[in-house]
């Protein structure tokens, strides 16, 4: 008897939740990528993304529901209807083939992360901006970095443009190790299993500080361009133009009245307002 009631309850859970799917806009957020987003011990989401999307949804007069999930499932989930929009989605050409983007709501960069005291802390162009599309300047620097990484291992998060970059530029020299999230990669970096990590500069700055006094320090240049998806926007399914325009308008307003500057400075100590030439 008890088994039957339990089974009935489970089946109604399936169809109940299925039919509920109508009204709110489901926003996919990873929950493991500070300062953009994080999950605390109470299971609550917090971070730059959370504050910003709450503000944007209010501006766009949309009812939004935040749904945490694994990063590797964001784009597949978007296309399958699990999410109607996903946060922290960097813009690049590869992704443009499968999804649409709003205008960027933040501008970031990529950087290497190494244990304090590692010889790799002396990678060239420390702390300087490097645009990979400027091939004359960038190619020799990347070649030099490639030599320094020869035979070593670099940890990246799966399904990210950082993963694609390291594989493309250094896949022949270094061993690329793919992790589920930045935190798990950092655990291995701290224990010495891998020699370096490559991730968002915003993540690195917020988690380990910019003065080089943390357990992990940033090394090498702040990289942008090529396939790196450093302009961060909201990802949407292809063809969702109405939703995109609502979000675009909201983002423009938030950039103009300084909301993005306020929220990003509060969470990452950096002003991440995107360039307004979109």
């Amino acid at each position, binding site marked *: 008897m008890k088994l039957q009631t339990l089974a009935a309850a489970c089946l109604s859970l399936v169809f109940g939740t299925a039919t509920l799917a109508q009204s709110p806009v489901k926003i996919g957020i990873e929950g493991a990528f500070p300062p953009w987003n994080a999950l605390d011990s109470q299971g609550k989401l917090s971070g730059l993304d959370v504050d910003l999307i709450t503000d944007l949804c209010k501006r766009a007069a949309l009812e939004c529901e935040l749904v945490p999930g694994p990063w590797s499932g964001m784009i*597949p989930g978007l*296309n399958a209807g699990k999410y109607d929009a996903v946060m922290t989605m960097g813009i690049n050409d590869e992704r443009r083939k*499968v999804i649409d983007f709003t205008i960027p709501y933040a501008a970031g960069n990529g950087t290497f992360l190494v244990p304090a005291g590692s010889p790799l802390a002396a990678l060239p162009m420390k702390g300087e901006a490097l645009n990979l599309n400027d091939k004359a300047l960038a190619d020799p620097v990347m070649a030099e970095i490639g030599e320094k990484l020869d035979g070593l291992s670099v940890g990246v998060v799966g399904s990210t443009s950082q993963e694609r970059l390291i594989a493309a530029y250094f896949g022949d020299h270094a061993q690329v190790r*793919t992790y*589920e999230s930045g935190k798990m990669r950092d655990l*291995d970096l701290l224990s010495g*299993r891998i020699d370096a990590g490559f991730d968002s500069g915003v993540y690195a700055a917020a988690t380990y500080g910019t003065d080089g006094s943390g357990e992990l320090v940033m090394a090498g240049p702040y990289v942008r361009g090529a396939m790196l998806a450093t302009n961060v926007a909201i990802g949407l399914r292809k063809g969702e133009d109405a939703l995109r325009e609502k979000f675009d308008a909201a983002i423009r307003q938030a950039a103009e009245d300084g909301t993005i500057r306020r929220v990003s400075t509060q969470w990452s100590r950096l002003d991440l307002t995107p360039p307004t030439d979109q």
Partner: protein
Amino acid sequence: MDVAFLWQALLTLLPGVPLTLLLASLSVLLGFLIAAPVAAMRLWGPRWLRVLGSGYVFAFRSTPLLVQIFLIYYGLGQLESVRHSFLWPVLREPFWCAIIALSLNTGAYGSEILRGGFLSVPHGQIEAARAAGMAGWTTFRRVTFPLAIRQALPGYGNELVLMVKSTSLASIITLLEITGLAARLISETYRVIEVFVVAGLIYLALNFVLTTCVALMDRRLTAHLRPVNTPSMPGDPA
């Protein structure tokens, strides 16, 4: 049905098969080397060894393999004492952490299978060996052990299939076996269902081959249990 993509996916995932098979077979082998003494400990050892053996089996059969993998890989990596020890060069590599976790896991299950095998040896055989004058160790080596192994074979064959399936968890600690390669392919192409279906088919094929081999071996070793085909005369009952 994008056959071209499915074919491409197959070619991308097949290189993961050697690592999958290596992880599975090495773990089963090491697991057997753990299981045999543990089974013996639990059957014939002094009390403290029996408790130790039972505790090990209970711990590894009652916790998920993924938790064991995380504990050995990330957990041990946190401890300073481990990082500075002579074990670190081994524990540093995800391959060995996976082998250790898988071996300890299959060792626990294997010891149960072997225990059943040892217990199933007919007492008459052991008495006969003693009557023939064999000492304890010789009896074990020539009578108990071979009979137990033959009894345990179907169970162990099943264990090997389960191990092949369990190796897919190694992808979560960055190893590029079949599932790891599948995850990487998906992150490049975003085509989840097709890639995982191809991966599933590869595992099915592997397990089919394994099950067939185990069944063949079982047939050869239990030939004496099957009825002998004698030609029958007309009028004989069927």
